[in-house]
């Protein structure tokens, strides 16, 4: 593929056409913060923390999605970019339990985010869903990055057990008709657990260990009745 020359933070860089701004910046050693982005998943530009400023383009562009073009001039930092990132972080922390998201905690510090900027914000609180023997779902910690949905679908497992549900602030991740996991197409591969950035999805054993339950107790913890396997197809 043809190569493209662009300028990132005043430095020229040559990358193949089709490269994203994120990857071009990485090539230069510039770090653009990301939250929803994962190398293993299709980029969706959902969280917008990776926004950058491109000369001649009015809105800020998500670096994870936007492709480079010839002669493009990109700023990965600057007042506008940083204010935008800070606001995103402040909104996230006002609504979501980020206590188990060390990367986002670092960003909060790095961008001097005011954790109390939106004191009246509704919090996303949900019951911990413990409906299967393998993992728990604690959607109070969910930032809707969509990674779990993607790996359950075409990014890895092709199982389609979970998806977005609801609208606006009530948007969440769920199963069809909120059925418990054993009654869905879930195969308990745990790809979703593997990509969750905030601890919303967690192996059940890890969750029990965190609660201070002894090894013996974890071994004895049962599901209260054995669940039947899905009927497929």
């Amino acid at each position, binding site marked *: 593929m043809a190569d493209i020359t662009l300028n990132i933070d005043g430095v020229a860089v040559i990358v193949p056409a089709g490269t994203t701004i994120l990857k071009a910046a990485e090539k230069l050693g510039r770090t653009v913060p990301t939250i929803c982005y994962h*190398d*293993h998943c299709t980029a969706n530009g959902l969280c917008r923390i990776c926004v950058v400023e491109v000369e001649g383009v009015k809105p800020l562009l998500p670096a994870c999605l936007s492709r480079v073009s010839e002669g493009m001039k990109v700023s990965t930092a600057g007042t506008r970019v940083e204010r935008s990132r800070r606001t995103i972080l402040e909104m996230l922390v006002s609504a979501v339990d980020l*206590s*188990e998201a*060390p990367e986002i905690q670092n960003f909060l510090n790095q961008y001097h985010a005011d954790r109390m900027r939106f004191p009246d914000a509704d919090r996303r609180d949900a019951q911990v869903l413990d409906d*299967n*023997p*393998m*993992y728990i779902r604690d959607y109070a910690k969910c930032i809707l990055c969509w990674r779990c949905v993607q*790996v359950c679908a*075409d990014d*890895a*497992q*092709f199982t389609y057990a979970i998806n977005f549900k609801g609208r606006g602030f009530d948007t969440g991740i769920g199963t069809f008709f909120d059925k418990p996991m*054993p009654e869905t197409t879930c*195969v*308990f*591969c*745990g*790809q979703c*657990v*593997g990509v969750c950035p905030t*601890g919303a999805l967690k*192996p059940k*054993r*890890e969750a029990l*260990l*965190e609660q201070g339950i002894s*090894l013996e107790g*974890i*071994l004895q913890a*049962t*599901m209260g009745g*054995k*669940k039947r*396997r899905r*009927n*497929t*197809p």
Partner: protein
Amino acid sequence: MIAADRVVSTTCPYCGVGCNLELHIKDDYIYKVTSPFDGVVNHGNLCVKGRFGYDFIYNKDRVTTPLIRKEAQAPGTRSQAFDHDQWREVSWDEALDYTASRLVEIYQRDGADAMAVYCCAKATNEDNYLLQKLFRALFRTNNIDHCTRLCHAGSVVALQMALGTSAMSNTAAEVIHSDVFLVTGSNTAETHPIIALQMKAAVEKHGAKLIVVDPRRVEMVNWAALWLPEKPGTDVPLFSAMAHVIVKERLYNRDFIDRRTEGFDDFCKSIEPFTPEYAEAISGVERNLIVQAARMYATAKNAAIYWALGIPEHSHGTDNAMSLIHLALLTGHIGRQGTGLNPLRGQNNVQGASDSGAMPWHYPGYQRVDDEASGRKFEQAWNIEPGGLNRRLGLTTTEIMSAIAPGGVRALHIMGENPMMSEPNLNHTRHMMEQLEFLSVQDLFINETGAYADVFLPVASWAEKEGTFTNTDRRVQRVRKALEPRGQARADWQIICDLAERIEKKLGRSRSAFWAYQSPDEVLEEMGRIVPEYAGVKYRRIEKQGIQTPVWDDNHPGTPFLFPETFPRGRGKFYDLEYIPSVEMPDEEYPFILTTGRLLEHWHGGTLTRHSKLDDLYPQARIEINPADGARLKIEDGQTVRVSSRRGTVVLRAWLTQRTTVGVVFIPMHFAEAAANLLTIDALDPLAKIPEYKACAVSVVSAGKEELPPSITRGRY
């Protein structure tokens, strides 16, 4: 939020895919398993067994002290002991001395033919190499085998006859480079889940077309362009009819046939009778589907064939595999990326155990025991007097079991295998086990087999020892010690070396075959000196990423796909095939064909997964019956049924599902309380000696709920 004390990279102990794992450990407890996203085998993806199925290592039923039976066992009256009070806890010294003296006593009285050993496709290359060395070097017997006999023996024999090799020719991840791939006799989505993901991606994202040939509507059918629902055991007519179409329509690769094969003209004559019409009459697959499949496969740029145990586990399993090999030889779909003949190996290390010589006819590296030069080579390597090693072919797994009798096999040592679940016709197996004079077992749990033992040697699990596994695409990968062994458990290789030294001393051998290894990498180095394919496999080269055999020397980069220029035997060879029906065909008394296999959530005899939380996901045995058959038999979903064959009976619940076709029923092999192998037939393939697990005749009748056996807790120790 838990901070891990340490994170240990290792290889999954379940299937042949060989996924890379990272074990997250806190206070010696594995609380989480992840996989590196840059891993070459599985790219960060795992299945339920790999990610959550390791908890058997903490199960309270696990045995962690050496045990000797309280009541002396004698041939004919040998019994099973599941309970703690039937065993005496002993020291390692006592257990190993006792094992050594009983084995030596029998060897000195009855000779080499009285000795036999089952090696283990779950154990490491090093464990298997040492165990076969022990029995060959000390007891001078080749009665050494492992579960490959029950698994891909037919594929191995056919590949050796036609090409001179016995492994997957390509790398599983290459499936995205195929235009067309054919999957047969494999429920890939459940048995090799990570390879199935790559197959699904090949279809969804890379435009590949999938042909599934299987009597079950397995999950991969959802992604297939063509599904050929054959009757069990009709592979030879079906695939030969595809060959017939390829020849008649001149879709073959003349250049490849001229350069790389022999016997083509005779082959053309031999497949003359295999018309699509004939194949339709036998296999039940509509002729047009056969023609379409043949055209699709033959006209592809790159086409690959993947198969699992539905092909070899027949009394004509070698022929079945051969009929697939013919397709590749006709079309030249081998020796390039995205092509090939790919038997998907079941166990994590079945390839490695075979490579390591856990075989009755071969030393490590497939060097034949009846070849004088090979014998000399191993005598030299193991410091044995010339002519000391046994030149006669040993007995296979099933033959060992049948040979248990006075004058035949008297002593059996088993590492990790569970023939009391995995052999066909278990009532016969039970009878034979009872006739043993001595049985010693190395395992984690007292399973159906261990319960028969005189002495039980508790072993370290895969997370508690160092070693290597060789996966289905020949990649040798590291297994690392993440935890100290529980209790007094010891690594298999240490147990074997300790036992070997005691046996050698009792035998009074003047020359030692050498057992004083400091670590498993010394074992692999020794193996590399006598197995050319492993010459360049060294621990220091595979610390980060595994390497694919053959690796001819320290600088060789490994071999992603085989045979670009030539086959090990020179030219690929065509064979004449005929259709031989399964030994037992359905009749009025036994009107259904039973086929057996695995489920996603369980593993083989269940020693591991039924001691894991995985058992909660699929806790009891169910027979899969097509709803049309269910309606005819007036059986409802979930109802209790009694299933009988000429050899045994099991009672279990029915699952009415389209997963199986009319006339065919399926029982998973994992459940001791309704063991599928009580029903299966012990007919063997004449060449490969593999049993016919995939087809026998059974009857299904409704039964009372009270007849349902209780879900037993295994290893009641």
